[in-house]
């Protein structure tokens, strides 16, 4: 209410009337509201509504790995400002996040930790893999220590190629993800060769025998069979 309106005398009006001023407050009268006219109701399926909500407000996990995370930071920060698209706020804890962007090379020592972080996120959760490293290992594909893509560890919804992808590309990827979520498309089922499992459950072979003195039966381990990698 603009200040040049003379406030009505206090005794004359109820609080509610005073709030209302002259007629309905037009703060809420968006164009959308006008379009609805006299029947401001929408009929939709609950699932559809939920999907729309999910895609429109996504919390990202603050998760940096390698070079790509620098461009990811730029995507969050001014100029590119991912927040504009309803998916800005980075959360430091996986338990509060809906989306994990995997920005960089995954190596053997980190993969079990990444899997753990992913497991800690509540359902429904989504994964955007950023950069060629997360597609195939990228420039380090032939490295002895490098996992050949994020999909070897966790399922991925959207791949954003590039080395590193420009912020615009990442935004496009996130927008595509939102679109998919809003349309209720589920993530593809992927092959995940590397699982966290208990050491005792591994098939016995030379390597397992050798490590038996170092690792407890109950310890979680990840076994890499590099030969099976793409």
């Amino acid at each position, binding site marked *: 209410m603009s200040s040049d309106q003379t406030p009505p005398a206090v005794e004359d009006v109820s609080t509610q009337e005073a709030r209302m001023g002259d007629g309905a407050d037009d703060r809420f009268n968006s164009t959308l509201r006008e379009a609805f006219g006299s029947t401001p109701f929408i009929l939709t399926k609950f699932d559809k509504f939920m999907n729309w909500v999910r895609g429109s407000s996504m919390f990202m996990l603050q998760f940096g790995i390698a070079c790509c995370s620098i461009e990811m930071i730029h995507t969050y920060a001014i100029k590119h400002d991912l927040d504009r698209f309803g998916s800005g706020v980075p959360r430091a804890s996986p338990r509060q996040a809906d989306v994990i962007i995997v920005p960089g090379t995954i190596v053997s020592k980190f993969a079990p930790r990444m899997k753990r972080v992913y497991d800690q996120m509540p359902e429904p959760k989504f994964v955007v893999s950023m950069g060629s490293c997360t597609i195939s290992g990228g420039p380090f594909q032939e490295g002895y220590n490098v996992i050949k893509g994020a999909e070897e560890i966790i399922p991925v919804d959207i791949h954003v190629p590039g080395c*590193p992808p420009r912020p615009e590309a990442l935004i496009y990827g996130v927008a595509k993800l939102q679109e998919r979520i809003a349309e209720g498309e589920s993530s593809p089922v992927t092959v995940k060769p590397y699982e966290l499992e208990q050491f005792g459950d591994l098939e016995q072979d030379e390597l397992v025998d050798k490590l038996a003195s170092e690792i407890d039966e109950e310890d979680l381990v990840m076994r890499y069979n590099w030969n099976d990698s793409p």
Partner: protein
Amino acid sequence: MSLEKPSRDTALDVGVTEDGLDYDALADLLGGHVLDREEHVNAEGFVIRPDEVQEVLSTLKEEAGFDHCACVTAQEYDDRYESIYHLRKFDDPTQELSIVVPSPKDDPHNESAARVYDTADWHEREAYDLVGIDYDDHPDLRRILLPETWQGHPLSQDYNQDQPQIVSLREHANPLEDDKRSEDDPDTMFVNIGPHHPATHGVLHVETVLDGEQIADLEPDIGYLHRCEEQMCQQGTYRHQIMPYPDRWDYISAGILNEWAYARAAEDLADIDVPEYAQVIRTMSAEMCRIASHELALATFALDVFGDFTAVFQYGIRDREIVQNLLEDLTGQRLMFNYLRLGGVAWDLPEPREEYFEKIRDFLDDLPHKLEEVHDLVTGNEIFQMRCVDTGVLSKEQVKQYGATGPVARGSGVDYDLRRDDPYGYYDELDWNVVTEEGGDNFSRVLVRLREVEESARIIEQCVDLLEQWPEDDREIQANVPRTLRPDPDKEIYRSVEGAKGELGIYIRSDGTDKPARFKIRSPCFSNLQTLPEMSQGEYIPDMIASLGSLDIVLGEVDR
């Protein structure tokens, strides 16, 4: 502390002459320890017995003034293993000496240097991890980059890359569990920080033990981003395939600085001269990278200390975006520039040149005002000062022991900058200063970075002046370099440049083919990070976080 300021008494000056080192005098000093002498491109190498490492190195350190163990390179030959200790002096890094320690093929081991130079601790652990040499009398010889259950040593000759590996994910034990500190408060608490944590600047894992609120024990656990950079470079050809990788070591926009490290080493190895015009462009673009890198260092440091993702952080990013635009105009990429070539740069400045120069000048004109803003927001801020002044103190002595370089060394008053002390590029023709601060605390390191941004701006400005007046018919951007480069066999070189974080060095050994036989990266962050336990002993966790931020590490370079 005789090493702190090598007084010019004769003892520390063994072999120092007007025109470089007199290696004969040094060999005399070591007497019978020197079995053989090798010619490396950068310095002479003295071959010594594997069980006399400590004796030789401490003689050289105490009596000849070699106070900087820059790097330890390990490699396997067909008939032996070899560790090379690259020594130089903080006072004058052009005085270099390599100590070459061969060890037998069937049971490779030699004495550790960690008791002489603290920095050798991690360097030797890395050598053990990747190449498989055992170091006797090493305080703690474990794997450092690869998981502890790894099988084999990947840079040794008989390593089979296809063998399966098992990596565990288990709880870390408290190393002080049994250490009952005192009668009434026997507990220590173990706190895991990282590898996924917003304050560790990437995938660093810090194992911390607290006694009450103070840090009783701390160990950085690295290797979560070890992507085999050395293997990649050994598989690439000198001419084209290696250059993209340096961009990905220190990936905080410091690409051209890193590329220059490789370019400098390879050019000296293959005797390539770089045209002056290209040197000026290199100098200019490298300093832009430095500004971008320091901006992000400041932004993330403020993020650590203030804990918000808002104002200060965004100011840093805002300024970086401008530098990144300039670099993009020049190189075509925002982050991974791949712009230098052996013998020059990839292409000339963007046309129209005047427009580009104007853009740079606009940026430089705005910079003082922006820095003032930053000083208002950050360094002038009382809370910031309380967090940073007198926390994380690192003495000169510690800096030298750990081989810390770059802003970390200069923040502790160690006046060491390779741009001036071991000049390359066009730096010695330009007018600029090396920034040092005496405090040695977190605050000093931040101040050094901010003031270095000003100096970099001065350098860029002079380069722009030069480039503007450069005669049009003399704009040679690349020397004539053969399509396939095959340096002579068995040449060895260690060369370094001043990267954004400090001394970034590269060791290359050629074997007559078009690919290096050994490619070793000496990363400044690897050495700098080693000082973290020293800085945070007895401090609170938040101060440790501030110290970590002020070290400005980047894991791509720590782990390589």
